[in-house]
């Protein structure tokens, strides 16, 4: 098998994984979405450029435990900012296999772009940005180890962002 061929397979698998993750988030399939994460997960939406999440504010800075709390809150049905839930449609594109992490897990470092329309009674909001992902190959397929969402409009006011971005 040539390198080019294996890269092609990897990319196809990566894309399928990203599309599934996007669909589960769009459909508020909380438990299934949560199941995509590894135990050392990091879900990060920075509030500004060049920030260290350990010492500065983030829109979201969830470890695995906090992802679970976020999901549990949504599942109560009384997370009013998502009850009723936003209607969501997102497109993932520009998927790029950037490299392989040098840790033993061999995480795939993946970049992608997204555009997401959120429709609520409040109106429509277009969310867009760059995804920086670390996908871990496991016996059960790819898992999400790290997801960083670089919103294009993060320097300015953001409306409520209570769905899974």
């Amino acid at each position, binding site marked *: 098998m040539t390198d080019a061929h294996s890269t092609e397979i990897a990319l196809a698998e990566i894309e399928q994984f990203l599309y599934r993750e996007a669909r589960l988030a769009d459909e508020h399939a909380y438990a299934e979405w949560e199941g995509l994460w590894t135990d050392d997960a990091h879900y990060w939406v920075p509030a500004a450029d060049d920030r260290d999440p350990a010492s500065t*504010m983030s829109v979201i800075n969830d470890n695995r435990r906090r992802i679970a709390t976020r999901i549990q809150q949504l599942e109560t049905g009384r997370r*009013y*900012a998502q009850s009723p839930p936003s209607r969501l449609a997102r497109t993932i594109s520009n998927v790029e296999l950037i490299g392989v992490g040098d840790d033993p897990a061999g995480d795939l470092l993946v970049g992608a772009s997204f555009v997401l329309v959120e429709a609520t009674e409040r109106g429509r909001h277009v969310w867009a940005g760059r995804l920086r992902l670390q996908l871990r190959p496991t016996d059960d397929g790819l898992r999400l180890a790290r997801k960083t969402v670089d919103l294009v409009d993060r320097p300015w006011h953001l409306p409520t962002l209570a769905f899974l971005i």
Partner: protein
Amino acid sequence: MPHVTTNRSATVDGLIEPTRVHGSLYTSPDVFAAELEQIWYREWIYVGHESEVPSAGDFVRKSIGPQPLIMTRAADGEVRVLHNRCSHRGNLVCVTDGGNASSFRCPFHGWNFGLDGRLLGYPHPEGYGGRNALDDLPLPQAARVASHEGFVFASLASDGPPLEEHLGDAAGEITRLVQLSPEGRLDLRAGWLHHEARANWKFLVENETDGYHPQFVHGSIFSVGDSRIGDLYGEKSAAVTRDLGGGHSENDLRPEFRSVGTPMWWFGASEDRVPAYAAALRRARGDAEAERLMVEGAPHVMVFPNLFIAEITIFVLQPLAVDRTVQHATAIQFAGGEDLNRRLLHQCVGSAGPAGMLLADDTEMYERNQAGVAALEPEWIDTRRGMDRERVDERGHPVGSANDEIGIRGFWRHYRSLMADGSGRP
């Protein structure tokens, strides 16, 4: 009063009663315009914190309502609040959030201003009859600037009561917060979340010390976390809501914290979780005082009209339009409390801002409030909760149970005094 922006006038006479206020106060553009003139561009407004501009040449962009400002520390060490508007043709002179600079150069025609606002130079001076001919055109400064424990306030009116009078007993709550730092100062440089609510600013202010809503609006997170916040505002709570006067109000949770008596319980922790902080505070204040501070915790106080100190988070409210308000939020960080600060930041990020597990739901309520008052019946918003159990404390402040609408009534009493026709204020 150089900052009058409109000739529209609105009267709030007859719209504010002791136990109810009229819905149109949240929806009328005329009322909003009058509020800008009579409150936001006249009263003491919280602008920023001295720690945001620690060194000479430091600056940050700030605001009062829709007006863009710059807070600077010039070479003389003084903190100033400047209007972000070139004195030539009105261009923004600063479009970066903050940094360090020797001057602000307006990109439109190259006018150059010092961080103290002085006009340092302008290209092709012969068109103005030479250099130094425009001494009347500095970057205008806020008419009055004063600070309390590093919190910088500005008033855009040259006359009015001094800051200490405006703050009244709210000043003590700010001081109480700062005392929790082993070094006696805050460091508010963790950056900001800017969360927009499609709602009138008064819905936000009213909610900040409303102890009635948490068990309902935040029931979802209380039920899945191990949070004890819900109980603090329950019917059995010993905590009180206090009208501090001047439109300021607080939820004083100390009676509950004292009855538990465990240092750092207020933060949902114990001393051994933040050993370096606890040791530093004990060294700085002595064991007895440090223990008292760690038991009583941080305040939950709304400083009229735009500074909300919520134990672990500083919120700054910025009204942009009658139905649009931005909530700026940053984590409280105590100088000399690194191990505590990491935890404060983590909790603050989890609870505040657009994705916050508390504030997203508060903001949802603000927006539904705004949508709801589009219905014109019933015309009034009711504020009577706890009227019959209101009492006066030893300092003369009205207090009531943890979930009474004391703070809301205090807000409106002060608001009416500022907005009333013929209030006699300049």
